[in-house]
């Protein structure tokens, strides 16, 4: 007989071994050598947290009492895993894309990041799971007591032992569960420890089973005969319980916080799930393979009154197989510890993220912009939550007296967490489900569960009086806890399952149908339901007034300085910004929010970001996306919209064209009037004087000469006008052929000055020849025409006493500028806008100009790919010619 001390030593060595494994795994993961930690096998084994002490010890007890019924709690999960393609695949994908930290986070995130919903789910989970944790403590202390006193098989478990077990579990969970803050990151240490424990418990149960079947039962055939001959030898399972328990265990498998943790949060890809889809049912099958034989042999061989919940231990002990008994004890110990660790981890994340952190944030007046590292607060709050939850479990264990059969506590817990199912399934499959519906369903289901299942479980005359069971609450018969609405005659568990889940679903659907979701709910709904269609996040932060510095400070406090800097730098890099502060674009804010959500949950992260960013976060585009109830409708409306936009555009273009035509018509009239005037004016002089010469007798020769020269001058003016008009027309119509030659700018200016020398008058021209050494490929004749025109204008109009024209060349922004500056009277401001217009004549005293010169200059420069500008100068006027660069010339052609 192994002494209690030996057992405690074995326990401690085993725990130390687990610590070492977990520590090694964490180290490997940090060094990037943790690939094997993500193997589907590890994932599958980690799912075994489903198999708790209830399963390990309780299943045998269950079988001893009710035969094959125990297997239902394995059938449900097996079906869920086999049907992974339907539900789990979607859950896991949502969990990954939304960086979900817990089931409360998922439900709250789906229904518009509602923290109220998160709190409700968290509280329900804590209430539902605490008895379960107590159950684990009970099983460990119970099994310990077996060893301490082999005779007192049904001895009450020791409270002191329970306390130490609880303390040890709390320590382990704190050490490995809160090492990294980011709950969305895998807890590699915990997962690997759980996987190791999964192997231990499977081996232990198979060993005991093998011993029972072949060591005690005399082989498979004989064993079967013994089973059929036993008290549980025939099929006596109640049909309604068979179905209800299968359904509830399936639901619980999805909804239990610890299962959600290992299934969804710790998941690393669809491949893990695909392998686990058959491997985990295999594990469950092996776990249940020898349950009935052990139960039958226990019933047969052990004294009447032995606790069937402990047959797994007491059978080897009674046969003197101490080694096997210790192995079996370790199996049970593993089942209990792995469950408590993962469940507490999941619950503490929920409590910390959805209750403690929001409270803490709201208590601080500064809100999200607090000073100091929020990470410490988060970790501290998570550690405290772990201890508080385990303390709750211990207190429950201490005061419930540990008397109830393991299986019944487990089932009550299952039904409790199964209440999450309607909100969960509705959330991922039905876009119409709303926050109101989820709240109504959860609260209804949970209340009915508490009333019909949890509270009665404490036994008659503890919470409920015997009268209440008989006559119902306040003497209302239809409120009897086991016969609600008069539906009596049902098994109490089935009764609770049927009423709680039915009314839960009815309220969930009913309220959802009647209520209207907020934009955020609709957005999230679309994201969740269409998780396989939507690649990117659609929730939008409006481009905001927040500064990246503020966001950086907040992110550093939650993610840690280094991680935050990395995140920001990556984002800045993606935006093409050097440095580490990206623009607070909607996309970046969404990413940041999701990163924060992985640490503190969606609702809190959303609240923190919105505190800094401020204002509504749903943009018109987002609403448009939500409005897309079906892609077709949107497509259609998009087409309509496009068509109407096109019509509007066409109408606008037509209107514009009409305006242009009208303006052109006015311009044409004015132009024709101008041309007519310019042609008729010299013609008038010519006609008049030629008639005078013809009709007047006795004109003196001086007069004759004078009149003839007027006629000549006017004829010349007319010719020049016609030349100019023709030139302009050619230029404007783009029919001009450019004769591109490479030559020096200096020579070009020389030539222009030479050409105009005849009319030079008093005008002196100053040049800076050094700068003129520029080689130029352009149409030199045309450019020369511009120069000549400008020099001629200066000759004609410069009214200074000593008229001077300064020609200078300068380089500016890679362009060559030639500047013709005179010292005449500056053109008045109102006229400046007109100087390049046709027929505009400013200070034209002798009327010899047609007012086309500068218009032609401008056309030429445009054709050459350059430009001409007027600049009023200090005491003069300057025309600046921007010479065409090679590139622009090419483009102009």
């Amino acid at each position: 007989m192994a002494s209690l001390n030996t057992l405690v030593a074995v326990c401690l060595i085993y725990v130390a071994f687990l610590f070492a494994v977990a520590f090694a795994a964490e180290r490997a993961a940090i060094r990037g050598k943790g690939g094997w930690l993500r193997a589907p096998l590890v994932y599958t084994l980690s799912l075994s947290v489903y198999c708790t002490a209830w399963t390990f010890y309780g299943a045998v007890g269950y079988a001893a009492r009710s035969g094959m019924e125990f297997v239902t709690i394995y059938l449900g999960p097996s079906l869920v895993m086999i049907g992974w393609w339907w539900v789990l695949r979607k859950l896991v994908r949502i969990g990954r894309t939304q960086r979900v930290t817990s089931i409360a986070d998922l439900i709250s995130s789906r229904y518009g990041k509602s923290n109220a919903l998160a709190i409700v789910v968290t509280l329900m989970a804590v209430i539902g799971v605490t008895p379960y944790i107590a159950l684990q403590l009970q099983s460990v202390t119970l099994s310990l007591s077996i060893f301490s006193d082999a005779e007192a098989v049904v001895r009450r478990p020791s409270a002191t032992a329970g306390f130490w077990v609880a303390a040890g579990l709390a320590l382990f969970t704190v050490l490995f569960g809160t090492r990294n803050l980011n709950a969305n990151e895998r807890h590699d240490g915990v997962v690997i420890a759980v996987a190791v424990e999964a192997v231990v418990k499977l081996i232990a149960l198979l060993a005991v089973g093998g011993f029972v079947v072949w060591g005690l039962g005399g082989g498979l055939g004989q064993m079967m005969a013994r089973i059929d001959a036993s008290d549980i030898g025939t099929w006596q399972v109640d049909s309604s319980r068979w179905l209800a328990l299968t359904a509830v265990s399936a639901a619980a498998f999805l909804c239990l916080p610890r299962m959600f943790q290992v299934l969804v949060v710790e998941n690393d890809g669809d491949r893990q799930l695909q392998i686990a889809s058959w491997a985990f049912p295999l594990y469950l099958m092996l776990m249940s393979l020898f349950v009935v034989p052990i139960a039958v042999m226990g019933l047969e061989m052990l004294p009447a009154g032995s606790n069937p919940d402990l047959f797994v231990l007491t059978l080897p002990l009674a046969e003197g197989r101490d080694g096997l008994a210790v192995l079996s004890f370790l199996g049970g110990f593993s089942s209990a510890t792995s469950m408590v660790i993962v469940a507490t981890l999941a619950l503490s994340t929920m409590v910390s993220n959805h209750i403690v952190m929001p409270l803490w944030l709201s208590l601080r007046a500064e809100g999200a912009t607090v000073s100091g590292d929020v990470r410490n607060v988060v970790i501290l709050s998570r550690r405290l939550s772990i201890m508080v939850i385990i303390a709750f479990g211990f207190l429950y264990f201490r005061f419930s007296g540990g008397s109830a059969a393991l299986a019944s506590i487990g089932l009550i817990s299952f039904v409790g967490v199964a209440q999450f199912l309607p909100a969960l399934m509705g959330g991922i499959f039905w876009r119409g489900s709303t926050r109101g519906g989820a709240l109504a369903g959860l609260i209804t289901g949970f209340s009915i569960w508490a009333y019909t299942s949890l509270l009665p479980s404490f036994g008659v005359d503890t919470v409920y009086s015997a009268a209440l069971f008989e006559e119902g609450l306040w003497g209302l018969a239809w409120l009897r806890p086991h016969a609600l609405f008069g539906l009596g005659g049902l098994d109490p568990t089935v009764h609770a399952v049927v009423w709680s889940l039915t009314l839960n679903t009815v309220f969930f659907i009913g309220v959802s149908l009647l209520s209207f979701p907020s934009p955020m709910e609709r957005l999230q709904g679309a994201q969740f339901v269409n998780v396989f269609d939507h690649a990117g996040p659609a929730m939008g932060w409006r481009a905001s007034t927040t500064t990246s510095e503020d966001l950086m400070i907040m992110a550093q406090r939650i993610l840690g300085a280094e991680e935050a800097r990395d995140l920001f730098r990556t984002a800045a890099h993606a935006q093409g910004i050097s440095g580490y502060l990206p623009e607070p674009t909607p996309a970046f804010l969404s990413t940041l929010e999701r990163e924060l959500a992985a640490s503190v949950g969606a609702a809190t992260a959303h609240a923190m970001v919105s505190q800094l960013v401020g204002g509504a976060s749903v943009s018109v585009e987002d609403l448009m996306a939500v409005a897309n109830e079906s892609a077709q409708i949107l497509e259609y409306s998009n087409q309509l919209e496009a068509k109407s936009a096109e019509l509007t555009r066409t109408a606008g273009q037509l209107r514009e064209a009409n305006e242009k035509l009208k303006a052109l018509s006015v311009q044409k009239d004015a132009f024709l009037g101008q041309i007519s005037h310019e042609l008729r004016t010299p013609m008038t002089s010519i006609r008049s004087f030629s008639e005078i010469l013809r009709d007047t007798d006795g004109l003196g020769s001086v007069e004759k000469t004078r009149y003839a020269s007027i006629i000549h001058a006017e004829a010349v003016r007319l010719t020049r006008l016609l030349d100019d008009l023709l030139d302009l027309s050619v230029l404007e119509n783009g029919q001009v052929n450019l004769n591109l030659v490479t030559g020096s700018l200096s020579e070009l200016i020389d030539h222009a000055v030479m050409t105009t020398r005849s009319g030079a008058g008093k005008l002196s021209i100053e040049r800076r020849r050094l700068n003129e050494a520029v080689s130029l490929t352009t149409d030199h004749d045309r450019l020369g025409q511009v120069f000549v025109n400008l020099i001629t204008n200066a000759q004609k109009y410069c009214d200074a006493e000593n008229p001077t024209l300064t020609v200078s060349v300068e380089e500016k922004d890679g362009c060559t500028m030639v500047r013709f500056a005179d010292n005449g009277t500056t053109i008045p401001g109102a006229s400046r806008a007109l100087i390049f217009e046709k027929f505009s004549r400013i200070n034209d005293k002798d009327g010899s100009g047609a007012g086309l010169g500068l218009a032609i200059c401008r056309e030429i420069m445009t054709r050459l790919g350059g430009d001409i500008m007027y600049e009023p100068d200090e005491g003069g006027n300057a025309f600046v010619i921007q010479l065409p660069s090679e590139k622009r010339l090419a483009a102009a052609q």
Partner: protein
Amino acid sequence: MTSKVPPDVFVERDTYRKRRWMDALRLLPFCGLGLWALPIIWSNGSADETPLVATSQAIAYVFVVWLFLIISGFALGRVLSLKTGGREV
């Protein structure tokens, strides 16, 4: 927005086969549910006229169904991951 592309009606033989395997995978849980729900029509002692089902038979039935589901799940998973070249299905 994803515009829904209508799936091709005629696909290559391999693709067609792969889709049918997918169908089988999807149907498997319902198959299991049906088989495991079958015991509810067994006599459970409340009606005397029919002979009771022995627990050994019940165990055999439940575990055979279990094994069938596991093997089918494994086989379909293998077939599909081979067909898709190891990619996620």
